[in-house]
């Protein structure tokens, strides 16, 4: 055993020495199969199907670890050597980037950079769009150079994260148990749903949903929901604490599965929810709608960041992976779950005309729409909740955010849970 492995190491070393004298491309095909990249992130895009496809298309191994948002932040900030690729959200990036655990990425090496949607480049979906409140992705998407530690407000050519996945979130409802139209965020605190409402117990996202509700109730209009003052945090929490004490909420959820179970079992009829959770409820045969609301959506975006420790062949492989990621296969896979791809036009090649029409263009389905796992989600004639890409992403009211008063907010959130 010892002998064998030593010989392998020697062989590898010789190949590497040869490679460095003869030029990198020579070793590329040889050694790429030995590369293992460790990726971690939230459950949404850490899919085994992606890892399998990477092995098939690119030849190297991708190890995936899925964690909840808090753990992801914690790991990215404190254990830089435990990962090669961080699949994180933009608001997490705002917290993690200053630690120096990620490295800037050269956009000239990104083949499809020019096709990335405007939201991630100048913040505008269309030239006329206004930029929503909160941590909009483009504000933390670029840094000044290869060693940049700050954020810049222009397309500097050095990206902190390469955008991969994003969506517009709203409330999920059980139309069969509510039986009337729901059009406003304020319905979450409507006494009609006493004991049948829920909100997510992840402070940084929950506070944004709360702010949408408070504004919709007409209680207060925030100058910036994504960056509240202490007084605004107190006011928001007071309204929700009162509702909690009046028994408005059935439960709070922290993980995706909990939200699915609450909704599917009928414990809850209206709650904050994520798109694939709706898909999961529907695939159990239970009616569930991702209800578009007048005040607009709370949106989020995720991207891939590279560990500062990544270099050499591994880094080349990581760039290869990123280019492959934006090339359409993953985009198509994610779009069939109800997310959006950063480069929609490449995803189109991997979706049927019916799928593209239903998920992206907001058209009536011409045939049964199935999830990537094969469950039927919609029948011919159905239209996606909220309509087309432009209608949904164009109605974003705020982005998930980290506030200056984050620590104060977290303490208040703990009080809310204990109240």
């Amino acid at each position, binding site marked *: 055993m010892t002998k064998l492995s030593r010989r392998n190491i020697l062989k590898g070393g010789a190949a590497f020495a040869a490679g460095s004298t003869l030029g990198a491309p020579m070793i590329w095909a040889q050694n790429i199969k030995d590369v293992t990249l460790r990726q971690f992130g939230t459950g949404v895009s850490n899919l085994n199907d992606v890892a399998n496809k990477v092995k098939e298309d690119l030849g190297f191994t991708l190890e995936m670890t899925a964690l909840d948002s808090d753990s992801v932040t914690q790991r990215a900030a404190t254990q830089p050597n435990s990962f090669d690729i961080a699949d994180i959200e933009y608001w997490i990036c705002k*917290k993690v980037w200053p*630690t120096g655990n990620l490295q800037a990425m050269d956009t000239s090496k990104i083949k499809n950079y020019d096709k990335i949607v405007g939201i991630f480049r100048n913040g505008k979906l269309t030239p006329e769009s206004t930029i929503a409140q909160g941590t909009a992705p483009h504000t933390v998407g670029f840094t000044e150079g290869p060693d940049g530690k700050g954020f810049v407000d222009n397309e500097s050519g050095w990206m902190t994260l390469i955008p991969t996945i994003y969506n517009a979130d709203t409330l999920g409802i059980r139309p069969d148990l509510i039986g009337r139209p729901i059009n406003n965020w304020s319905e979450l605190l409507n006494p009609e749903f006493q004991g049948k409402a829920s909100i997510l117990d992840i402070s940084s996202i929950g506070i944004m949903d709360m702010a949408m509700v408070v504004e919709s109730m007409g209680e207060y209009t925030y100058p910036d929901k994504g960056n509240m003052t202490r007084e605004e945090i107190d006011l928001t929490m007071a309204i929700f604490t009162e509702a909690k004490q009046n028994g408005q909420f*059935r*439960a709070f959820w922290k993980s995706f599965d909990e939200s699915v179970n609450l909704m599917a079992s009928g414990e809850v009829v209206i709650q904050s929810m994520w798109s694939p959770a709706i898909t999961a409820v529907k695939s159990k045969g239970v009616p569930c709608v991702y209800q578009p609301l007048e005040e607009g959506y709370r949106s989020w975006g995720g991207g891939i960041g590279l560990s500062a420790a990544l270099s050499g062949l591994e880094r080349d492989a990581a760039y290869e992976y990123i280019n492959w990621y934006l090339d359409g296969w993953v985009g198509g896979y994610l779009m069939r779950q109800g997310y959006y791809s950063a480069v929609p036009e490449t995803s189109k090649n991997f979706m049927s005309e019916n799928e593209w029409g239903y998920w992206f263009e907001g058209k009536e389905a011409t045939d049964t729409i199935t999830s990537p796992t094969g469950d039927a989600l919609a029948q011919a004639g159905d239209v996606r909740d909220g309509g087309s890409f432009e209608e949904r992403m164009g109605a974003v009211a705020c982005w998930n955010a980290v506030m200056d008063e984050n620590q104060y907010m977290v303490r208040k959130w703990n009080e809310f849970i*204990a109240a």
Partner: protein
Amino acid sequence: MALPIMAVLVFFLVLPIVMIVTVSFWQATEFSIIPAFDLENYEFLFGSNVTYRVFFNTFKYAFITWVFTLGIGFTVAYFLAFHIRSLTWQIVLFLLCTIPFWTSNIIRMISWIPFLGRNGIANSTLISWGVIDEPLDWLLFSDFAVILAFVHLYTLFMVVPIFNTMMRIDKSLIEAARDAGASGAQILWNVIIPLTKPGIMIGTIFVVTLVMGDFITVRFMSGSQSANVGRLISNDIALLAYPSASATAVVLLLTVLIVIGIMLRFVDIRKEL
């Protein structure tokens, strides 16, 4: 002989506690921990009325759970020790009590959720029997559910030590009491309970420390709507606030030690073992 045990204890018990106490005086920003000597964590802890409410809640869970586990545990142990005559049957029935422990405690806890839910088995059965018209909402995601799960999870920790001490009671003492004219209730109160005290105390220590240190049962069974000290600590850890989590842990540790210290005043376990 004592050296290896000492080494294990120092390495796995004393050092971690020293570390926790040290860190509890440090400071933290969102992603860095700064070594310092600062009382801020404790000031915040003792200055917030949430802390007192949460500690009260923790004691409440511990006390109610203790009452029920003691009642059930004592009865089961008594039945096994004094009503079952053959040793074989005692062993068989005792093993029967441990069957639920063959699955993970998370599974045992979560399986209550579909049972107690609004459209769960409990509610639909009660409705079909005509006992209630509307489903009972307080069955799940409530203090009732939390305590039910605790009692279910931890009663065995009461049964085992009590059963153990009961088996050591000399049967001739009970015969002597009966010969002297004592009634069944008198025997129970004046002979069996005093002799079972060490077992009760060991069981109590198990149950109280388990309930006071728990966070996952409270989170799942209350639907995240109630908090105990364990949840405060786990929330802090999730948000990288290790110093503040350590300070809470130190206060919890001291509280539990005080509680156990008080209990040991009543029964000298060492003398009676």
